[in-house]
């Protein structure tokens, strides 16, 4: 992974000093609340329901074991012993004291970490494929490009005060695992007919209050020009994006109101002045960054480990885990392992300091000292030998990180919701836990198969409910918490927004509602047909009919 040099390190150290002074001036009354707010937000610091919340950047989801141990230490020393991995591939701490934040940032800087631009109206953490570099369907490794973009966007002086937040995702594989169609800029690495690397550029996607799928504005921007092209997009947005209404301030609104073709023309006109300028990338720079992402020292192994195969036959629980949580690796004899944070007793994405220490140890022993955070809020050990899978599984099971449920109904994405977040209209975590508790039969879960449930506590959509096969949105009606259900959303290559099935439900009805939806699927599915494909084939009508018609008389449904 990328290692800081003296320049990277100096920048994060200077940030610590800057923020320490800003916090000192705020506490001394020299900076007003309104003045301090954007400054702290650009440092990932929110003032939340119970305490400040600090969001630490995990660039494109990559972490070293040393970094994870530091996060465990911070959870233990400055927080309540746990952290929360987010859909932005970052980690949040829910209970730090404001006065300690400069010290936490100083500790993070010792392991090449920071909280820069994890919030605020600036270019946020660049996200990417959690299986980058190891997936078999990858054509171009997105990590060096994500790092080049990270450096370009860090403290960019022109774009620190945009109309709204700005999110960029990069994909380099056949299957898009970075949800690029739901980002302000989605970058798809491609090769042209001469074999040159470049980017297909999507713009104006995003979830939130007004969910929109991104539009392609360029089929091929050669790699040398990607920074100047992004600069042109950002400049058009910074100048012409709406600032009168924060709900209409995202670039998607500008693209929609201008039309993608007209927007693309504006970008081209701006780009004409920037193209071939100093920010044009050089081969030397790309090679320098790419050198940080070369393959580790893989052993030459047979494609299938004999011992692993035998254990799969002998141990049903291990086989169930391997089936869901282990993926094929591009190298023979290796595997990609997803450690599940999803369990009916914990919030999706939460990990304790002890669990983080365990994962760091496994990363060192089994996966070249690295791991990844997924936008589904799980952790990935990307380079595990098949022969190590059984011992890793046994240890992960003891640590509560081996739920065999990746991609299954209980692998729920959920934002922190009303338990933690000031913005939320409703709770998310108890809904996720109640659904997980209802579907606790493993055989049934595996029989239901691939399905994604995404829960957001408000329409800011941190739980990405629009793109969940089943989407759950917490809404407030006259001071009470209700839940609106949508079906048919999906992420990936065919990203689609779900359709709301009807009036919202009370919290206690949500497990029943999901159960009715699943029963409808079981009744209607063709053999081997995935849930989302059944929904696509039939539409929402049969699901809606079952959910509302079969409701018990006492079930509460809110109008509208």
């Amino acid at each position, binding site marked *: 992974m990328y290692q800081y*040099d003296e*320049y990277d390190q*100096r*920048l994060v150290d*200077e*940030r610590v*000093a*800057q923020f320490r002074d*800003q916090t000192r001036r705020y506490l001394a009354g*020299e*900076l007003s609340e309104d*003045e301090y707010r*954007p*400054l702290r937000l650009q440092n990932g610091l929110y003032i939340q329901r119970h305490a400040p919340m600090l969001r630490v950047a995990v660039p494109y989801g990559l972490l070293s074991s040393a970094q994870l141990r530091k996060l465990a230490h911070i959870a233990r020393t400055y927080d309540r012993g746990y952290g929360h991995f987010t859909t932005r591939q970052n980690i949040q701490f829910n209970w730090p004291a404001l006065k300690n934040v400069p010290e936490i940032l100083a500790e993070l800087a010792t392991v090449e970490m920071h909280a820069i631009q994890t919030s605020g*109206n600036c270019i946020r953490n660049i996200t990417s494929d959690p299986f980058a570099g190891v997936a078999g369907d990858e054509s171009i490794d997105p990590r060096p490009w994500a790092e080049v973009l990270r*450096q*370009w966007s*860090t*403290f*960019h*002086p*022109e*774009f*620190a*005060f*945009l*109309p709204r937040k700005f999110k960029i995702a990069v994909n380099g594989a056949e299957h898009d695992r970075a949800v690029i169609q739901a980002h302000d800029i989605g970058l798809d690495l491609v090769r042209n007919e001469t074999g040159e690397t470049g980017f297909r550029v999507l713009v104006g996607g995003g979830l939130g209050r007004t969910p929109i799928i991104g539009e392609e504005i360029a089929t091929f921007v050669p790699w040398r020009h990607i*920074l100047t092209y992004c600069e042109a997009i950002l*400049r058009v947005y*910074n*100048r012409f994006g709406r*600032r009168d209404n924060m709900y209409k301030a995202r670039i998607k609104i500008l693209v929609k109101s201008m039309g993608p073709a007209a927007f693309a023309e504006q970008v081209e006109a701006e780009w004409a*002045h920037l193209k071939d*300028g*100093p*920010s044009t*990338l*050089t081969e*030397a*720079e790309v*090679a*320098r960054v790419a*050198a*940080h992402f070369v393959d580790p020292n893989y052993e030459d192994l047979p494609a299938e480990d004999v011992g692993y195969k035998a254990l799969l036959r002998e141990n049903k629980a291990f086989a169930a885990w391997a089936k869901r949580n282990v993926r094929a690796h591009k190298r023979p004899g290796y595997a990609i392992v997803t450690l599940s944070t999803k369990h009916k007793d914990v919030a999706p994405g939460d990990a304790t300091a002890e669990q983080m220490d365990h994962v760091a140890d496994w990363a060192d022993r089994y996966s070249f000292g690295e791991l990844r955070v997924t936008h589904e809020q799980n952790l990935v050990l990307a380079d595990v030998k098949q022969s190590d899978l059984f011992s890793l599984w046994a240890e992960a099971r003891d640590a509560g990180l081996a739920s065999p449920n990746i991609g299954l109904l209980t692998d729920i994405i959920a934002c922190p919701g009303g338990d933690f977040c000031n913005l939320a209209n409703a709770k998310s975590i108890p809904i996720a836990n109640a659904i997980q508790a209802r579907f606790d039969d493993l055989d049934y879960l595996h029989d239901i198969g691939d399905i994604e449930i995404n829960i957001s506590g408000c329409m800011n959509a941190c739980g990405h409910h629009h793109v969940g096969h089943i989407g759950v949105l917490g809404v407030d009606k006259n001071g009470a918490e209700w839940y609106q259900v949508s079906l048919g959303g999906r992420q990936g290559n065919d990203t689609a927004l779900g359709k709301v099935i009807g009036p919202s439900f009370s919290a206690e009805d949500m497990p029943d509602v999901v159960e009715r939806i699943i029963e409808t699927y079981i009744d209607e599915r063709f053999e081997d047909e995935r849930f989302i494909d059944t929904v696509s084939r039939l539409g929402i009508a049969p699901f809606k009919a079952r959910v509302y018609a079969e409701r018990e008389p006492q079930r509460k449904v809110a109008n509208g």
Partner: protein
Amino acid sequence: MAKLIRNRRVEDDVYTIVTLSEGDAPETVSLPAGPALVPLAIWKSRHDELPEGSGVWLAGDEDPADIADNLTALPVIGVNFPKFADGRGYSIATLLRSRYGYTGELRAIGDVLRDQFNYLSRCGFDALQPAEGRYSEAQLEAAIASFDDFAEPYQASVAVSNPLFRRAQRAA
């Protein structure tokens, strides 16, 4: 007298910043006797009447292309920040310096805070004028340190014309 920071030094300012209140017409509003920074509408309609040394200030939604042909006649251009979190002025300054080649004084006015000095100066502002009364003279002096919050930025800007990957030999 109002204070500003010009080329990293606290100085007295002789300019009057003219704003149009509701009901004021650019054609009839009274102008000061000394040098003034006036809104684009006044500058367009009355620049022959303006006192010697006067300049124009742009609002966030105004296009620097509108004054691109007159830059040599302008000793100073202001860019107004109605709120410090309104970042349009950074792009306006970048365009004035890099696209249109403006070399006179470029002054940030309005809601200007020391926490933006580093970014503002990198986008080409050489004069920064926080709202009157926002900082004491001692605080303004102390604020000069903020220019150097970051010594070696990654990206190119008006003040640093090459990105780090062209300025420095970075080890792989």
